[in-house]
């Protein structure tokens, strides 16, 4: 079959069922991004015979003999397309991961379609909340100024990566193709609480292309936290790289490494796990009651405040006397507020590529907000000299706090060290929801007393925060959410109690940043 991509002919045969997105990336068009692989987000938008399509839904074979244009193809002889130029001069992007798809759709619109951008851009999602700037780009707004060298201070200069972002050449984590790259897929627990009795690997190892299968038998014994903070002691050490006990449905159980993603997935289907299903608890209040299943039967080295009651930590703070304060109040307000479990939904999913370089140094190219803290966290359990570990992030397609968390780098490092080969792991969008982190759902009971002149006389807050099956950011989040926010109010009588974070059998979760009205995920 002949494919014409950006004016160049390619003789190639897509795999059966392969979508155009992965096919174009194999041809080196890394400007074609993966956001959802479900036709919702539009990060993979390309033009086929001039019409925009979601290349994740478009069968590759159907593009044979038709003209395919990707973001790279809009650049002619080094000159940006007018729509690329428009996005550059309006700075119509933030992380830039949605930008290639956004520009492809925008470049295909006629004047009539441009009148109704809410409809015309419905198939393109920007998660950095940049729609105002995107609309500005299409309407011709100019946000940037030229500044002579040495005179940029106070001027609206463009982002240094602007040209690379709008031309599709900005390299995100997976926009490289190392030779000999192997692919890793994670087998996840279907049970909320279960002990692994045994894992049978022989059928999976017989699948052509499968190189290795790693389980609890292959990991360092050392406990750590996936959360990354400057001070390690902030987060409880309750995690083993591949644990013999699953504490939420979606917890990783085994890593299958193969020559292709398809072989790794086929191998994963053939891994047979014998589980002893254990009682599970799903409600944070119930998890604290006597007799509730205990998630982490661990000692003080794990820094779990009350492991027998599934409480990661508590935070109490009193000032003055709230009883007196309420007695002095003209008005008392009381209410209960509940927040939900929400995933950050950065368009670039968690992903990493790892390899050993010629000097024997472990390299992890990752989509992370904390490369240096992750380096430290990797060196420790594997007993490596930190100087022999390098973690880098070239450009990140959104993180919003969820990438202050080591969710892929540890298992990629294990696979690299075990096989000696370069390894890639890329979460699917589904894995983001079942196997990554989310906001901590909280139940907040607040009682506030005030005088008619507006003075606060008493504030009382009781919070139960649900950190899921693992503690990770639980303690840090409660500090920000409850202590810091409470402290900014001028009030003589405060009671800040029952600030608990509770383990229960759900995916671990965390809150990226807390502002008093945090309803957006912005890094």
């Amino acid at each position, binding site marked *: 079959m002949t494919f014409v991509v950006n004016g160049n002919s390619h003789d190639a045969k897509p795999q059966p069922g392969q979508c155009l997105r992965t096919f174009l990336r194999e041809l080196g068009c890394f400007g074609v991004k993966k956001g959802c692989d479900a*036709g919702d987000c*539009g990060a993979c*938008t390309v033009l086929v015979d001039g*019409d*925009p*399509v*979601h290349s994740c*839904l*478009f069968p590759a074979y159907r593009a044979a003999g038709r003209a395919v244009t990707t973001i790279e193809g809009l650049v002619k002889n080094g000159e940006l397309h007018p729509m690329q130029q428009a996005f550059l001069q309006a700075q119509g992007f933030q992380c830039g991961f949605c930008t290639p798809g956004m520009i492809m*759709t925008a470049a*295909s619109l006629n004047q009539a*379609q441009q009148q109704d951008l*809410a*409809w*015309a*851009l*419905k*198939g393109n999602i920007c998660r950095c909340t940049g729609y105002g700037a995107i609309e500005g780009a299409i309407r011709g707004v100019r946000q940037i100024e030229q500044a002579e060298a040495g005179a940029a201070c106070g001027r609206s200069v463009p982002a240094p990566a602007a040209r690379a972002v709008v031309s599709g050449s900005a390299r995100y984590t997976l926009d490289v193709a190392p030779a000999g790259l192997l692919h890793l897929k994670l087998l996840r627990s279907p049970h909320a609480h279960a002990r692994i009795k045994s894992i049978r690997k022989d059928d999976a190892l017989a699948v052509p292309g499968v190189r290795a299968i790693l389980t609890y038998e292959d990991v360092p014994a050392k406990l750590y936290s996936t959360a990354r903070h400057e001070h390690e002691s902030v987060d409880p050490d309750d995690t083993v790289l591949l644990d013999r006990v699953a504490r939420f449905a979606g917890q990783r159980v085994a890593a299958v490494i193969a020559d292709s993603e398809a072989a790794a997935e086929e191998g994963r289907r053939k891994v047979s796990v014998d589980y002893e299903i254990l009682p599970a608890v799903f409600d944070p209040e119930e998890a604290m009651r006597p007799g509730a299943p205990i998630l982490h039967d661990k000692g003080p080295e794990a820094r779990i405040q009350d492991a027998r009651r599934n409480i990661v930590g508590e935070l109490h703070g009193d000032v003055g006397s709230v009883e007196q304060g309420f007695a002095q109040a003209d008005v008392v307000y009381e209410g209960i507020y509940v927040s939900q479990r929400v995933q950050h939904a950065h368009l670039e999913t968690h992903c990493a590529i790892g390899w050993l370089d010629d000097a024997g140094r472990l390299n992890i190219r990752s989509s992370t907000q904390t490369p240096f803290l992750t380096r430290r966290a990797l060196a420790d359990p594997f007993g490596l000299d930190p100087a022999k570990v390098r973690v880098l992030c070239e450009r990140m397609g959104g993180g919003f706090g969820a990438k202050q968390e080591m969710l892929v780098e540890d298992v990629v490092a294990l696979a690299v060290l075990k096989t000696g080969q370069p390894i890639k792991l890329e979460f699917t969008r589904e894995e983001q929801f079942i196997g990554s982190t989310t906001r901590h759902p909280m139940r907040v009971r607040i009682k506030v007393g005030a005088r008619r002149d507006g003075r606060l006389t008493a504030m009382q807050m009781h919070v139960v925060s649900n950190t899921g099956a693992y503690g990770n950011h639980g303690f840090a989040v409660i500090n920000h959410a409850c202590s810091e926010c409470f402290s900014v109010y001028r009030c003589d009588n405060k009671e800040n109690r029952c600030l608990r974070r509770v383990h229960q059998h759900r995916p671990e979760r965390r809150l990226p940043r807390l502002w008093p009205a945090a309803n957006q995920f912005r890094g």
Partner: protein
Amino acid sequence: MLPVVSVVIQNLELATVGGNLCMSLPAGPMISLTAALDGVCTIWTPAGNERRVAVADFILGPQRNALKPGELLRHVDLPISALRRRTAFRQISLSPLGRSGALLIGTLSPDDRAFALTVTAATPRPIRLLFSDLPSRAALRAKVEAEIPQQLYYADLHGAPEWRRHVTLQFAEEIRCELAGNGVGAA
């Protein structure tokens, strides 16, 4: 009657009737259309046989349908009799381009005044309410309440179940009035 097709520009040329049915979302507009017009699915089986199932029975729930492994949906037939009926249509979403929270279609036969109300989007699967004649306001309301108890209304971020129940009852009555030809709100 033209169901609101919540398709995005990238899929305008690609989305298919069958794909919309097989996705089996509560707010699948082609499900609404073909269920309301007595559509019948023809399914090819791996053994080389065919089987037929009404669209209303094809959809079992959100992203669940009657297809078994290896089967495919070949086509959907709409009977001529259904196309001769008068129709009335109501749809609502929480936002102007959002997914439907409720989509109701009523049909009235020109021959015997048989009335059919098809509720989609508000419920996990299509609910069809059949009447031998155009019912009274009270009879219609009673049947909607009986056939769609509160717990059957779909709950997701595209609409609270209480709201879906409210707009379903409202639209059912509006459709009844429109097909009766005596104006909205008439008894």
